[in-house]
């Protein structure tokens, strides 16, 4: 075990080196680029024995990932924003073909207006593709989540997207513990596919045309796999904790037990919210945070249990479904019968400080509208 000060992009790359994928098709895009550079370096230096494919686009990156994963090997790729959008149709195919690809997405806003800065719209709009989606809070979470994603995906047979906030995490250095290879070997042994994979000695086709006799069943199997992944994620995070000592889950519940108001959020913003909660708790205010780590599967039962005693919920979204509020807000509203307010924050890299978090808490105590855009110049109509 070594602790080093590094960016989350470096932490992701270290995790990939430990997970030992055999094929890495990747196309660079800000703010993901340094992941593709670190991995190219590891392969060139002989530190990682993988086929590094310099594809000509993200569409090809995901297509090559599918082809490689279809042969039954471990695969890694990474992208961001427009690149993820360009992958869109292939993402559905990867999930439908049940390929356990792991991808990092450096969360970045979508054009137009063109922005290289952070929000989560890029991965949110891929939520129905059938991928598992984990949103990480810091560099350590990024590293650990990659290792867990392989283990989870290879059991569930659905691909995993590990989402990390662009710049806020990808370009921030902080201490990150790199686990020993021997520990990782114990947690994540080499991948041995059990089911359908391409093998010259045992020929078969993958991803064939499916007529109306079978299509619905195939889709239902994805639905079932997503449902079953809840238990698998809980099992894998427990195994991770037993070996590495760090506790993860579908959610992280921070001071929720006696909270009157619970904030619900994903990603790096959770840290700032915890800072604000610590201050408010010192003043006797009962505020809690439910951090969603897993957005897909959406852990409905776990959320309902955590918020059951809260009077109000405040949901923070770095995405907008026009006319409907943010994505998490909509999910919460559709599954929970609770007084809930939605807040749109941090689009296109707008900074979120304790002032904005306090404003959200105040606006939840004395609400004037269901969905509020925070920090909007000129205010909201």
């Amino acid at each position, binding site marked *: 075990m070594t602790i080093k*000060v590094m960016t989350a992009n470096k932490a992701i790359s270290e995790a990939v080196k430990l997970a030992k994928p055999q094929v890495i098709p990747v196309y660079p895009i800000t703010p993901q680029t340094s992941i593709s550079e670190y991995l190219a370096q590891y392969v060139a230096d002989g530190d990682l024995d993988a086929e590094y494919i310099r594809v000509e686009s993200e569409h090809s990156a995901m297509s090559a990932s599918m082809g490689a994963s279809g042969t039954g090997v471990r695969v890694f790729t990474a992208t961001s924003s427009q690149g993820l959008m360009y992958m869109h149709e292939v993402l559905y195919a990867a999930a439908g073909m049940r390929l356990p690809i792991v991808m990092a997405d450096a969360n970045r806003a979508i054009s137009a207006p063109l922005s*290289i800065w952070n929000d989560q719209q890029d991965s949110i709009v891929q939520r129905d593709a059938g991928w598992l989606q984990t949103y990480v809070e810091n560099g350590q979470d990024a590293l650990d989540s990659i290792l867990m994603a392989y283990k989870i995906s290879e059991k569930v047979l659905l691909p995993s997207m590990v989402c990390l906030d662009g*710049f*806020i995490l990808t370009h*921030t*250095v902080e201490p990150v513990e790199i686990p020993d290879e021997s520990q990782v070997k114990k947690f994540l042994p080499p991948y041995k596919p059990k089911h359908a994979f391409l093998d010259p000695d045992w020929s078969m086709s993958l991803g064939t045309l499916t007529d109306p006799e079978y299509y619905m069943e195939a889709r239902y199997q994805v639905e079932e796999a997503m449902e079953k992944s809840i238990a698998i994620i809980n099992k894998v995070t427990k195994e991770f904790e037993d070996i590495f000592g760090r506790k993860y889950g579908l959610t992280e519940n921070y001071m929720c037990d006696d909270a009157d108001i619970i904030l619900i959020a994903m990603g*790096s913003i959770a840290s700032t919210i915890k*800072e604000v909660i610590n201050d408010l708790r010192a003043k006797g205010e009962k505020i809690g945070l439910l951090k969603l780590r897993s957005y897909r599967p959406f852990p409905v039962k776990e959320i309902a249990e955590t918020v059951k005693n809260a009077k109000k919920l405040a949901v923070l979204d770095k995405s907008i479904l026009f006319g409907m509020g943010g994505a998490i807000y909509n999910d919460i509203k559709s599954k929970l019968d609770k007084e809930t307010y939605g807040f749109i924050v941090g689009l296109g890299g707008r900074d*979120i*400080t304790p002032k904005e978090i306090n404003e959200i808490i105040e606006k939840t105590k004395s609400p004037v509208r269901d969905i509020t855009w925070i920090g909007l110049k000129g205010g909201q109509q």
Partner: protein
Amino acid sequence: MIEIRFHGRGGQGAVTAAEILAKAAFEDGNYSQAFPHFGVERRGAPVMAFTRINDKPILSRYQIYDPDYVIVLDDGLVEVADVFSGLKDEGSIIINTQNEKQPKDCIYPIDATGIALENLGVPIINTVLLGAFAKHSGEVSLNSIIKIIKETFPGKIGEKNSVAAKVAYDSI
């Protein structure tokens, strides 16, 4: 928690300096964090970078608005960027300048360019200013700064930069 804001121009190494400082602070046994201002970086354009140092894990995930220290890599920036913005009452500014007379008591001038030219032969001043900061603030040890400089720039370049940082340290 100690918060440091760097003002530089693209290419002067403000981001690298912020990262070296964070790594050195970690080396001293603290928690630390460093990140660039999330801007599009162009050579010569005003840029910012930030470092936080704390004895506890750092939760703050936003830019630094009320710094304890400001480090200015180029005195020309005082005209174009609000380097004083949010500076705490007891805070101070280290500025690379040849002008020893400064308008406020909280500004500590150092001829980092002169030290760099003498010791490196080129006007690269980020490591020089880290040496000056270590002495001025006492928030980070010179040993750790030098260790990380050598890690960041292996070989002769690291050696020379370490000497320059030490000269700056001793000049305060």
